[in-house]
């Protein structure tokens, strides 16, 4: 178990910069998720920590020690690959005992440890089978067993659940988390699935195009996104153009076309200046629809239901509010509002977040570019 630290780590492959000046701390014993779309550099970070790629610049520290130049086989890390990478010509027992063999663990002791590891992943007694004789989910557990049996300082997991079907994935999600909790190993988990990240992590590091966009606890990242990218990537979010009309260190007043004036607490608009343009972020589930007047303490607007996506206990509405479009997700008990219905949408200002507008070259980093 150890703390892992990236100090302005950069990795370039020729012209491509896969990771740009990443500064991240993975606390000892924590479960941290690297979350981001395909190609944003998640695997590259993991491979650099494992030693399979060398950083172009910056330092990687494990347990306070700089390990840039430490060869892979001396790093004592457990790495679980997306496709499991079990050795097809070795039995499950030999696969799991592999790391023990190279640590000089005596045979009898290794056999005990293999048995224990198989119990932890709830697959006892499969030592003599070959990987291809197991299902995908079982192979995934074997890969995990092989990685944890060596008692690694850090456990690295590269989208280990993505090859499983939806049901199994949710089951393994819970199981993986509880195994991690039991053995308490510092874990770094890579995924592009936001619900996986929200469900499993102590901390989430959101990445885009090689840059770290935000780092924080799941509810922090979800509720107070630091950039438009984070707001859009985690769950369904609406973004409205706004303008700061007044601000002090407690409150920020915004003017929007759809909802008029609303006042946010300062911590919901921490990145805003005291004037100028802004973007108002409203989560789809925070937009309330009703036929009656809006409740007190909310701001509201008239809207038309343009389309309905009925999902049983939930309905997703596509709304036209003046000139802008918005999405709302609501629990329903009866029938959903039909297409074309005239409704009132309301929101509580303290549920919103305000951000500085993105710089013109698209999705931007926390500081723009």
């Amino acid at each position, binding site marked *: 178990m150890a703390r892992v630290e990236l100090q302005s780590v950069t990795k370039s492959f020729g012209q491509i910069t896969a990771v740009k000046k990443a500064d991240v701390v993975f606390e000892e014993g924590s479960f941290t998720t690297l979350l981001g779309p395909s190609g944003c550099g998640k695997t590259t970070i993991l491979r650099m920590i494992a030693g399979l790629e060398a950083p172009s610049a910056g330092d990687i520290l494990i347990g306070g020690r700089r390990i840039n130049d430490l060869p892979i086989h001396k790093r004592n890390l457990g790495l679980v690959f997306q496709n499991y990478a079990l050795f097809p*010509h070795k039995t499950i027992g030999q696969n799991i005992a*592999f*790391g023990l*063999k190279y640590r000089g663990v005596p045979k009898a002791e290794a056999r005990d440890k293999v048995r224990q590891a198989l119990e932890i992943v709830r697959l006892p007694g499969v030592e003599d089978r070959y990987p*291809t004789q197991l299902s995908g989910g079982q192979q995934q557990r074997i890969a995990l067993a092989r990685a944890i049996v060596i008692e690694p300082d850090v456990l690295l997991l590269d989208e280990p659940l993505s090859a499983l079907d939806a049901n199994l994935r949710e089951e393994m999600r819970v199981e993986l988390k509880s195994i991690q909790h039991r053995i308490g190993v510092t874990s770094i988990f890579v995924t592009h699935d936001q619900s996986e990240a929200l469900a499993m992590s102590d901390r989430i590091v959101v990445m885009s195009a090689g840059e770290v966009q935000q780092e924080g606890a799941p509810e922090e990242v979800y509720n107070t996104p630091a950039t438009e990218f984070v707001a859009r990537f985690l769950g369904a979010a609406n973004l409205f153009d706004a303008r700061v009309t007044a601000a002090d260190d407690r409150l920020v007043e915004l003017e929007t076309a759809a909802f008029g004036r609303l006042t946010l607490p300062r911590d919901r608009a921490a990145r805003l200046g005291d004037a100028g343009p802004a973007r108002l972020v409203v989560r789809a589930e925070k937009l309330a629809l009703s036929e009656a007047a809006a409740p007190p303490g909310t701001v509201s607007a008239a809207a038309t239901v343009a389309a309905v996506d009925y999902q049983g206990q939930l309905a997703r509405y596509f709304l036209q509010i003046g000139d802008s479009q918005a999405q709302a997700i609501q629990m329903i008990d009866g029938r959903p509002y039909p297409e074309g219905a005239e409704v009132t949408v309301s929101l509580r200002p303290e549920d919103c977040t305000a951000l500085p507008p993105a710089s013109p070259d698209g999705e931007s980093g926390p500081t723009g570019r």
Partner: protein
Amino acid sequence: MAQAREQDLRPWYLLSPALAAIALLVVVPMSFILVYSFYENIDLGLDRPAFQFGNWHELLTDSYYHVAIWKTLRLSVIVTVLAALMGYVPAYFIAFTRFHHKWLLLLLLIIPFWISFIIRTLSWIHIMGNEGVINALLLWLGVIDQPLHMMYNEFAVVVGFIHVFLPYMILNVYVSLEGIDRNLEPAARTLGCTPWQAFLEVTLPLSLPGLAAGCLLVFVLTAGSYVTPLILGGPDDFLFGNLIYDAVMSELNWPMGATLSFTLLVLLGLVVVVYSRFMRLNQLTKAFG
């Protein structure tokens, strides 16, 4: 019942064109050869149809033929082992290089096949002959003052064989290396292997099927040839195939040639059968990968 039997026959219907072709092109000519081996050779090129075991008796009793079989096996093993050692490295390089134009490397392997293999074999005369490139260079540099005798001996024959058969080995090994999951070696590395240990634990065992196929191919091709020793070898460097050539072309003794041909065919067929039986068992225990 009747329907079940009909279904049992269906694979045979589908196989019948192939079976017919094999029967016509392989089994029938081989039967001719077998029949011919019982004929009697009276004079140069003059045979008498008969059913007698004179040729077979000669094969089994004349030690000249036994020496040829021994020489053939020995040289084939030498060539196979050398080709395996020399072929693995380039195969590994082509399979794992990050060079973007891999097809170019593979093309380089295949291009020699565009030139007749006899011409490729003859080219060694200009390289290793007394007036060849190597001797000319060494003489000019003053390293030697008499040309080295590199031609018309076993060494030259081995060089010629390796030159011609190495691509078969490389391609076979390459194909099996190419099929190995690229994450396996890194996985072994993170579990504590040095690069060399990771190779021995993962890549080498998983590439054995390709290596085995390459070895079988090179062995059989070498054991069945006669042109290379004819061009590059000395009087003592003959293989079993050269005896067939001599019997048929020089002595015009077709019955003896037929006997020898059939023998070589059976011997090599036996090698293939035993070897592939052994490899298949091996693969079963290695499990379904």
